[in-house]
């Protein structure tokens, strides 16, 4: 004979079993990622013959939805060169610490130190490379890059100094023009674009897109004359529009610059690929993260349509 107690007990068994099986249908769990406090992020690119600039921000938790990185405005930022130090002032407009009294000089070592309240001194040191002049830029004519596209065939020639060196080669097109508007006023505008460079030597190809340029080391021409052969994405030398310019830039860069661009470029390129292995971006900042990198630029300009004659 069933009693109320028996029914209640059976109901309890059924309820417990039901709860277990219902909970077993849920197969996802939210994972917490520990985050004690943000790190200080120091970014600075010192280029010969420019004013030094340093930007300081805080890192954010990976799950933080806020995409803005507010600058740290109250830090004390100091640059030291050959034992001489000077402070950089915070500039509201650029959100960076700058000095308009000093220019960056190639061939010297720079030490940056930032004092941020609540943190150990954030620092890094880096040698600004010397300028490597472009010895020659040879136009080898127009070439078929593939079945449909043609590009200009160039060789950029320079002498690689002794030791380990790294270079960034880039090119961009620039043309200023004007027209008369409906009021009879002259309106000036410019057409500008980055030119994609495709190296002939596959050793110089990257696994990622780097703003159209090339980033290379000197393993293949260490201490000798280097000739970097490449095609441009598009034809510029036989352009029918007058007045355009193509600027080729050879930037002698530090190893940190090379490592940062290589690793950041790869991380960015793989963004969204669920099958890609993770990429750690290079950082050379003590007691923080970010990058302190240096470069020295040489450039050469050619006029578009110059091969039309």
């Amino acid at each position, binding site marked *: 004979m069933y009693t109320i107690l028996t029914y209640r007990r059976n109901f309890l068994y059924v309820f417990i079993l039901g709860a277990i099986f219902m909970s077993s249908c849920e197969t996802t769990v939210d994972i917490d990622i520990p985050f004690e406090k943000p790190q200080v992020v120091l970014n600075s690119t010192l280029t010969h013959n420019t004013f030094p600039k340093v*930007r300081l*921000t805080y890192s954010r938790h990976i799950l933080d939805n806020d995409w803005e990185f507010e600058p740290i405005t109250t830090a004390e930022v100091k640059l030291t060169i050959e034992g001489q130090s000077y402070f950089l002032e915070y500039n509201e407009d650029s959100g960076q610490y700058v000095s308009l009294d000093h220019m960056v000089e190639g061939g010297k070592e720079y030490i940056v130190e930032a004092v941020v309240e609540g943190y150990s001194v954030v620092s890094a040191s880096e040698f600004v490379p010397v300028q490597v002049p472009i010895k020659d830029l040879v136009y080898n004519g127009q070439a078929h890059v593939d079945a449909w596209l043609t590009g200009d065939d160039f060789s950029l020639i320079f002498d690689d100094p002794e030791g380990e060196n790294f270079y960034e080669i880039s090119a961009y097109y620039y043309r200023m023009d004007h027209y008369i508007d409906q009021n009879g006023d002259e309106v000036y505008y410019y057409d500008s674009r980055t030119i994609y460079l495709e190296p002939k030597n596959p050793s110089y190809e990257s696994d990622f897109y780097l703003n159209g340029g090339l980033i290379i080391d000197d393993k293949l021409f260490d201490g000798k004359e280097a000739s970097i052969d490449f095609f441009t994405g598009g034809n510029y030398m036989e352009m029918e529009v007058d007045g355009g310019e193509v600027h080729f830039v050879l930037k002698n860069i530090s190893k940190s610059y090379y490592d940062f661009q290589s690793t950041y470029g790869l991380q960015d390129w793989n963004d969204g690929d669920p099958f890609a292995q993770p990429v750690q971006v290079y950082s050379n900042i003590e007691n923080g993260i970010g990058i302190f990198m240096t470069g020295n630029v040489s450039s050469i300009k050619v006029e578009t349509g110059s091969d039309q004659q």
Partner: protein
Amino acid sequence: MFIRYFSGIRDWAGRADFEFIPNPDHYFRFGTNVIFHKFSPGVYASKSSTGDNDLQLGADELNSTEYSVYAEDDFNISNRLKANLGLHYSGFTTDNQHYNSLQPRISARYLVNESTSIKASYVTMAQFIHLLTNAGLGLPTDLWVPATANIGPQKAMQVALGGVKNFNGFEFSAEAYYKTMDGLIEYKDGATYLNLDEDWQDKVAVGEGVSYGIELLLQKKVGKISGWVGYTLSNTERRFDEINFGEWFPYKYDRRHDVSIALTHDWKDNKDFSLVWVYGTGNAVSLPTQRYEGAEVDTRFGGSWRPDIEYYESRNNFRNRAYHRLDLSFSWWKTKKWGERKWTLGIYNVYNRMNPFFMDIGYDQQSNKKVKQYSLFPIIPSFSYGFKF
């Protein structure tokens, strides 16, 4: 049309083992073993619904032959001291490349008294098949790949020291080990399965590893309750010039703590109850923990922008949740005229632990970023019937 990624190995194997006991103080064992492998590592296959557009991409199939010859002698040096001296020779032919390896092995056991012994060993090993693990958050798509003309075999050396003590029906053993490994492989940063132009060999770096730890085991072999409790404390790390900026990092399957308990209670003559509980530190995976602003990129036309960078402290910087699970089973049997029949009632994962299978970063319904862990097997009851005659 669908696309699938698969990796497979087919083996055809043969072996012969011999034993020879010339006198009570020597026990020789020797033999040989041959395996023909057919590897299909990392192959994409696409198939259209009409079946007229089938395509296979990725690595080519690879045939390899692995063989080994071994000889060892278990011999008594004295009443208390016993040693094992062995030599293994193994070879591997693949891709017009031949690898071979001679591996000396020695172990010894000393009987301190009737209930206590100590043991030590030195072993060298070679392995011609690599486990290539995925370091990211996604599905655990590990591949077994062979040594090739470009990627050599992995080699290891291990020394161990331990002891065994018997008391009151229990046996307690402890062993400490230290192992070094060379020729290990790991995916390089940024390597992706979606890059069909590259073979898996171009996506890996070769490096070294180290593993050390201590294993404790308490066993009870007699009585109504029998079973064992085991605990291992270990550390396994790897180092590659091209990964993690050349620094050591934890191996994906580094299990700092590993506990296992297996008990059987012979309840009655025809009934028993068993319990298994396992615990292991979670796998090490690479997970970005912070985001930060990158260096300013100049567009050369007066403008600039600052990229967003994901920060990984190191390769395999994050630990999955620990794996643990309790399984229970109850069996009862009855002897019949024709034999014996047995019923078993079991419950797998009794407390419905959500053990990690893989993780993913996504967004919830309120557009908040979340890290989600996915599990495979919840609580599963089972019931079985068996008989023997």
